[in-house]
């Protein structure tokens, strides 16, 4: 890295702020993975990193390589789009699997039918 001494100050500041911000947000999400108590709370925490963290770091990479070269570099849009599309798919399947396992074992705080189910107000309980 010898040819980068002439980078504009604005792009350096933007790259640094976006990098630190994205990494810090990802770390907060991962700390939530450690601190939250139940699985259904924990499943929410890493999505901080997959949405805002990925967006910030990919934007920093785009800004840096665009000012380093002569034309705009927009490859990182691929990463943002891919992670944004795949994270809800993954977590939906995973939470559905966890719900199935908890219902099967009658474990955790998961209602079998009725009870504290979140569908109680929406769907009428046939036993009532």
């Amino acid at each position, binding site marked *: *890295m010898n040819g*980068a*001494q002439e*980078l504009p100050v604005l792009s*350096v500041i933007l*790259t*640094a*702020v976006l*990098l*630190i911000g*994205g*990494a*810090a947000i*990802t*770390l907060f*999400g*991962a*700390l939530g*993975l*450690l601190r939250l108590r139940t*699985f259904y709370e*924990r*499943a929410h*925490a*890493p999505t901080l*990193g*997959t949405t805002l*963290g*990925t967006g910030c*770091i*990919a934007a*920093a*990479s785009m800004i*840096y*390589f665009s000012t*380093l070269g002569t034309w705009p*570099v927009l*490859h*990182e849009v*691929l*990463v943002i789009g*891919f*992670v944004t599309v*795949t994270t809800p*798919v*993954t*977590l939906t*399947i*995973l939470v*559905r*699997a*966890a719900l*199935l*396992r908890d219902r099967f074992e009658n474990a955790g705080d998961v209602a079998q039918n009725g009870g504290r189910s979140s569908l109680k107000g929406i769907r009428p309980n046939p036993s009532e």
Partner: protein
Amino acid sequence: MSTALVWSIDAALVLLGLAMACGAFRMLWGPRAQDRIVGFDSLYVSAMLLLLTFGIRTGSMLYFEAALMIALLGFVGTVAFAKFLLRGEVIE
């Protein structure tokens, strides 16, 4: 490269490494299988962001391709794990 940018890249690398450590902890000591899968998901996303940051550090676009590959294979792996938990087999 200016010194401030090098310092901020190093700090971002450290923060992302700590995030990877949190994901690895949840993957190794998770009480149940779904906790381990969530830890694995967090681990590979942090590793992908670490590779993007390292690509800025070295000024090479090759790390971007590696990051894209980690995102693809991590997604396929996580969906396969979750499908296994859901149905008992991956390909029916």
